[in-house]
């Protein structure tokens, strides 16, 4: 099989090379922009004014300011909290739980739940932001239809629990992905293994902990890698819903970077934030990849 494809490859080298041009161009484009961002992070390039025309090379000034000035470290913390609760605990945890619970459930229940979580996934982020605003604002559904009829005081959720609201909104938005991935993964686990564990007297929790989770380890690690990467850089829903506020309560790194680059106009500093984000996510990725490889040893 392999030999055949090699022969085919040899015979069609020219068309293959032509077909590869778009891919090569894309790769070059990515490398160019990544290189440009790294270069920019060492300059004081601005969006406007003198420094937009003649930027200076400032060595590590931007990186030093990341740790010596207010803003960046606070945003790292906010982003970490947001990612941990919304992606790792929320999307991944709830996705796995739903996949396990619904695996053998009746067709109708499964369809209803799948439709519900897929709806969140399919809704555009800005639409989702308006929905959650309508849901959680002081005149929103939670207050008007739940809290007030039950005799509770009106709570301004977006004022007082902003980070909690964006975390829940993102869980709602993104759980479908993890659910679908784990559902597919569960289908590959052979029934015999689970039944064997059952016969050996393992209860449900033990079957989950000692059989299912180890079998799904690679998929869990891969999923954690994905959701962490894109949640760490998540922007649109939070920006549209709270703009990073009130105050800086929901100012995650992507919003901080955007504000520094495009509101303040410091493209150099904004690039340094972007590179720092990339490094943080890179470290986490290495950790996850190691986790998924351990199992194969």
């Amino acid at each position: 099989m392999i030999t055949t494809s090699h022969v085919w490859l040899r015979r069609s080298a020219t068309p293959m090379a032509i077909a590869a041009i778009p891919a090569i161009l894309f790769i070059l484009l990515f490398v160019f922009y990544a290189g440009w961002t790294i270069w920019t992070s060492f300059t004081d390039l601005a969006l406007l004014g003198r420094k937009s025309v003649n930027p200076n090379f400032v060595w590590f000034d931007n990186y030093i300011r990341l740790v010596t000035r207010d803003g960046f470290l606070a945003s790292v913390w906010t982003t970490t909290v947001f990612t941990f609760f919304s992606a790792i605990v929320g999307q991944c945890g709830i996705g796995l739980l739903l996949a396990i619970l619904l695996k053998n459930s009746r067709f109708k229940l499964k369809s209803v739940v799948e439709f519900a979580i897929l709806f969140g996934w399919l809704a555009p982020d800005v639409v989702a932001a308006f929905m959650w605003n309508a849901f959680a604002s002081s005149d929103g559904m939670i207050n008007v239809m739940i809290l007030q009829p039950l005799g509770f005081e009106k709570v301004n959720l977006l004022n007082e629990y902003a980070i909690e609201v964006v975390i829940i909104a993102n869980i709602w938005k993104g759980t479908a992905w993890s659910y679908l991935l784990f559902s597919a993964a569960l289908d590959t686990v052979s029934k015999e293994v689970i039944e064997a564990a059952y016969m050996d007297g393992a209860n449900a929790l033990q079957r989950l902990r000692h059989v299912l989770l180890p079998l799904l380890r690679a998929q869990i690690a891969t999923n954690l890698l994905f959701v962490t990467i894109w949640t760490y850089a998540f922007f649109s829903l939070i920006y549209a819903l709270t703009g990073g506020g009130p105050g800086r309560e929901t100012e995650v790194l992507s919003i901080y970077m955007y504000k520094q680059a495009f509101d303040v106009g410091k493209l150099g500093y904004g690039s340094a934030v972007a590179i720092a984000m990339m490094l943080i996510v890179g470290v986490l990725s290495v950790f996850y990849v190691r986790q998924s490889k351990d199992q194969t040893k």
Partner: protein
Amino acid sequence: MRNLLLSVLTASVASGALITAAAADITITYPAGWEGLMEPAFADFEKKTGEKVVSTVVPKEIDQRITVDFAGGAASDVVVYDSYRTAEYAESGYLADLSAYTSNWGAWDNYFGSLKEISTISGSVRGIPVYTDVRMLWYNRAIFEKAGIEQPWQPKTWTDILDAAEKVKATNPDVDYPIYFPVGTKLAEATTMQGFYMALLGADGSEGGANRLRDWNEGKWIGDSPAIRKTLSLYQEIFLNKELSGRELYYTPDVWGDMRRAFANGEIAIMANGSWEYNSIWRAAGIEKTPQERDEFMAWTRFPGDGSADAPQFSNISGGWNVAIAESSDQKDLAWQLVESIFDADRYAEWVAGQGRPAVRRDALEAPAYKADTYLTSLSPLLEETTGRDTYPGYSSVSAFVQQATTDILDGKTIDETVATFRENLEDEFGEDQVKIIE
């Protein structure tokens, strides 16, 4: 297969031709809501020149869009931009020099000198003003009546404003915003202009830039001053100490629309805002109200100084919008013809009056539609005593630092901490020798 390849090739050549054809058209980017001024002008222009106008209408945040378009080399031939950007855009080489055109344009003499100045950098005209604005405190009459506050309301100091808001809070528990005072970064320039600057200008005398963000004589930005501290403490009073304002409206997905609907729904008692709101509130709320009905619902009063000895009695600051030609345009003469069409005297006068915006040309002020508008004519005294922001290159960064400072106050930082960060930001951006401290 071969046929398919051929048709793909033909299609790509055809689309290439289309793109080339499109490049010869005149392009313009302008904000939504200006169609009444623009579309008839496009029709005139197309009839006169035979060229086509391709327009991009930006529904929101056009300021940022234009800036990024310029920076990315993708600006239209003609752009509509916030006039405070003139100095920075000009310094970046984004705006074409219009002096040669304006010197041969009869209408240019009709523009007010102060507005020509804002748009003229080092002797070169960079933009044509469209309209200007003034700022004030709007209030809801019914809420004030319930709170027992005398009308017309004429606060003399900041204490009077806070007192009125406290009365509202005590008597109208349903009003979440006894005062709406722009704060934070999501409202962007509105925080700086409608909130911070209005307070700052009334917090001290003008000597040595004491009530501004820049000392123009020394050529330095001001990193710390008693006026800056007083202004931040006003934010502290409103949002933390007296809790006279909710926070949600400053951060919702639609900050402008939600603020306007909240005012129309009686959720805001006092609102630091601009002259355009007399119309914009009702447009956003989707409610038709005659001028008389509006006057029964809302009224405005001048924004007082803080009451200290040197401070001016009232403060006011103006901005406005310009039409300009991008330096990158390779058909500037044609673009200028479009600009002239946009400023057709009769059409412009009627449109600006219909928008409820203070005009920037003498001939427009004389137009019957403008003269008949009692609201617009009532703004004239404010227009005579107004000032502009410190639009020296770098201003937009300074303004962003101001917005961050108000955020810090909301986050519970002390005035000392907030001012220290503000000053540090300025020093990072411009260098220590470019930043002045007023004790």
